[in-house]
């Protein structure tokens, strides 16, 4: 009986004009946008490759270690664009994509910069496939659903069906299954076309993990689609009149898709001013640098074999002037001290100061590294409190709408969510550690090349290469599945509601 019902419903749906329009529009939008997005991705990839090349060149041009490995120096690493960002751009085009690696500070998201494009162009909203689905799929689902039950009530056909010994649950199930099958056609077709375009692009190599991620995105899309279909069905069952159901469905759509995600963040109370937290943390950090660090440095300078009070050690020579500088930013709690020497040669009479300078830099390198690590222990939780926690609260508010849940889930699958963006900075911090280890191994801090290139320039090949791997698919799944499960739960709850209403209703 169920199959008969499903077949009837399926035919009913497939033959309609709205189905044809739905398929056509969906395919058109997704294909056109995928093509544009792929071009955009390729552009970003070129920018990334250029940036990597220039940064390496600029590093090679630096003749001393101290000139290269600093905050303002040239030791920059870049974040490659994520090919799955065409499904959901997320943070891929927003968060800074280059960061300086130095022993003088621990890099974080708030120290990042941006390679490439025109910043004015950020003005234009960016688009991705998840956004198309968010808007169109929900609309289509509601348009398919609003008259399924209300229409049958109105035409009296429901009474006719129920005169046969058909269970009401079966009718509901048949309607749900057949409509979902219909709606899956445009969804899967357009996704398939997008994937075909993706795989035929020469600059993109997708591995098994990527296909699994795309599978995850498809799963999330199906569940999202189902939520909106069920919402439409609920409205249809509750109102019993097609025109009312249609209006209600449209307003619900407008509210959930258009209004709620954009309004809610303006309405919720703003978090308590993090200014005090920032000020106290920055005070602590400043304290460490200005008191402990300076104290130890001063102690070293005065007790050393050839006492010298100034940081420049009284060294004079040809080439760039030495300088020492503290960079700081109270907003992002950034603080670092750097001491850059880039001599190209010395007089004979300066030669006796060289061993002293070497021991000074050996000491300074360790001290700066240790202080940077020490302040990071304060900075890290403070940054979490000031920036990440309020943002996460906002994210939870957004998830009260299925649109927010779907967006979060697809971002997590694509790896363009905040976690994905932060993975890069985790990798940057690991890389910094590797660089420091390599510097220790090769005794670079105490070497003459640290401050002078007169006896050979700095050898940058001793440093490890940086490469960034996106999180594996298990991690993506772990980040995405909570949201997908909530979506599934919403599905079940609404289905039960519809069932209760439909069973109790008089025909």
């Amino acid at each position: 009986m169920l199959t008969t019902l499903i077949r009837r419903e399926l035919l009913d749906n497939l033959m309609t004009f709205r189905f044809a329009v739905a398929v056509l529009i969906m395919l058109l939008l997704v294909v056109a946008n995928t093509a544009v997005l792929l071009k955009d991705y390729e552009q970003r990839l070129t920018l990334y490759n250029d940036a990597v090349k220039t940064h390496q060149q600029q590093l090679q041009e630096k003749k001393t270690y101290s000139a290269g490995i600093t905050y303002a120096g040239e030791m920059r690493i870049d974040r490659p664009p994520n090919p799955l960002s065409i499904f959901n751009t997320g943070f891929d085009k927003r968060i800074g994509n280059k960061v300086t690696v130095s022993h003088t500070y621990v890099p974080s998201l708030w120290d990042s910069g941006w390679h490439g494009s025109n910043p004015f162009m950020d003005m234009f909203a960016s688009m991705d496939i998840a956004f198309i689905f968010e808007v169109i799929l929900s609309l289509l689902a509601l348009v398919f659903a609003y008259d399924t039950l209300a229409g049958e009530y109105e035409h009296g056909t429901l009474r006719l069906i129920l005169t046969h010994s058909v269970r009401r649950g079966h009718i509901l199930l048949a309607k749900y299954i057949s409509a979902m099958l219909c709606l899956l056609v445009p969804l899967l077709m357009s996704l398939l076309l997008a994937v075909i375009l993706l795989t035929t692009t020469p600059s993109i190599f997708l591995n098994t993990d990527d296909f699994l991620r795309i599978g995850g995105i498809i799963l999330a899309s199906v569940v999202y689609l189902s939520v909106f279909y069920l919402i439409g069905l609920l409205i249809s069952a509750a109102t019993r009149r097609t025109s009312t159901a249609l209006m209600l469905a449209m307003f619900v759509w407008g509210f959930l898709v258009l209004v709620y995600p954009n309004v809610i963040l303006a309405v919720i109370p703003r978090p308590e001013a993090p200014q005090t937290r920032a000020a106290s943390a920055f005070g602590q950090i400043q304290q460490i640098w200005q008191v402990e660090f300076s104290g130890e440095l001063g102690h070293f300078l005065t007790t050393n074999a050839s006492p010298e009070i100034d940081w420049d050690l009284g060294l004079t020579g040809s080439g760039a002037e030495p300088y020492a500088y503290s960079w700081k930013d109270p907003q992002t709690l950034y603080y670092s001290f750097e001491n850059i020497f880039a001599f190209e040669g010395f007089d004979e009479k300066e030669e006796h100061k060289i061993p002293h300078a070497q021991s000074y830099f050996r000491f300074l390198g360790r001290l700066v590294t240790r202080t940077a690590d020490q302040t990071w222990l304060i900075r890290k939780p403070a940054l979490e409190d000031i920036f990440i926690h309020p943002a996460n609260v906002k994210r939870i508010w957004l998830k009260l709408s299925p649109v927010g849940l779907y967006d979060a889930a697809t971002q997590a699958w694509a790896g363009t969510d905040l976690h994905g963006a932060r993975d890069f900075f985790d990798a940057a911090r690991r890389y910094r550690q590797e660089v420091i280890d390599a510097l220790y191994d090769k005794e670079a801090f105490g070497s003459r090349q640290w401050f002078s290139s007169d006896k050979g320039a700095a050898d940058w090949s001793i440093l490890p290469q940086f490469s960034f791997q996106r999180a594996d698919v298990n991690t993506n799944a772990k980040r995405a599945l909570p949201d997908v499960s909530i979506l599934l739960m919403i599905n079940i709850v609404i289905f039960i509601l519809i069932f209760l209403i439909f069973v109790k209703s008089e025909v």
Partner: protein
Amino acid sequence: MWHIAKRELYDNLNSLRFALATFLLLGLMLTNAVVHLREHPERVQKYIENVTAHQNRLKSHANASFYELAQKGPGTLHKKPSALHFCAGRGEAFLSAHVSSIQSWSWQERGLEGLWSLWYPSATPNRNNVDPDVTKVDWGFIIGYVLSLLALLFTFDSISSEREYGTLRLMLANAMPRHTVLIGKFLGALISISIPFTLAVLVNLLVISTSSDAYLGADAWGRLGIIYFIALLYTCLFLALGLLVSARVQRSAVSLVILLLAWVTLIVFMPSTLASIAGRSLPLKWERVSQRERRAEYNKHWHEAHGDQRKQLQLSGEYVTKDAEQRERLHEAHLKQGISQVNRARSITRFSPGTIVEHLLESFAGTGFERHLQFLENVQSYARQFREFIVDTDSADPESLHIFGVREGVSQKSVNPETVPKFEDTRNFRRDFDAAAMDLLLLTLFFVVFLSGAFLVFVRVEV
């Protein structure tokens, strides 16, 4: 005709959609007003602080010495926030609110420092921002997205449902020309949708104007009036589109599906897709200034002129001023590249009425890109004025050598701070209107095309 309009109006007033639309618009406009009242005072406060700091800086430089003032330049110039920020404030975050004059180097050996040049920083609010990405709810959003959708919801069935029920045939059986029916329906829908919209606008403005923090002057009210009429024109466009499809299609459900998909394509997808096709965010080229060579050349000449102090001063002055000119030229070229890219993207996105109305609202609200360009022009003309002032002041001093860029070469007197020109970020209504005229015409064109389309279709359709 009025009869039909009245009938439509009564029909609509009692309907569910009217209630829901009123509710939705009121809610959005209230949110908008509350958010504006929360944020605007802070914005104004910050602007005032910045301007005071800027003026104090100028004063202290002027009091210190003429050289200080001439060398350090006017400092940071700030953009005045618009009182109508709530109308179209979405784009503002991406435009820098200030232009600075910077001194980029100092050369202690020679006792030289760089001459100021204008530097146009870019606003990158997203680089370190971990908050979720949402659109700000301003009038632009409410009108561009919500009002247009409502207009379609009010008209999608106005003809097709009458045909479905057979009442259209009844109506036309009377001696009633078809265009009268169409215009009547159009007016009815327009009036019934402008009721909730006007109500919401009034509530919004009432809330905003009760607070003394967000003062609206006569000029602002005039601009608000224009914005209101633009919103109505934009609504008319979508009403006409709704009538067009509704007259052509047999069934209301089909009409709605077509309209919704057209709306989604026109309003939601077209702007961003077209922008990314047009702009594709090309990287901006930075020419590198080759300091080293110029410095070497200067050094050579300087050593050659050994003993002739005046010559050396002249050489130094020339080096410093040329360097500043070159920097400023580079910064300006960089800025121009960026602007021309945006302008290209903006003109291509004009295919979408949603973008047109956004541009219009921005023009009249005094926010957005056109306004930013005006601000940049103001800054540049002020920079010229400042330079003229420096030259004039120096030439008024007979003891000065008139060699700019070096301390010994210019007037040694201090400057009366009152005489230093002040930066005023003015807005010109005529310019706003000129910028908007094109968009206004386009919007009207869209409206006329849709309305005449609806007319043609309706006249020829079989009932």
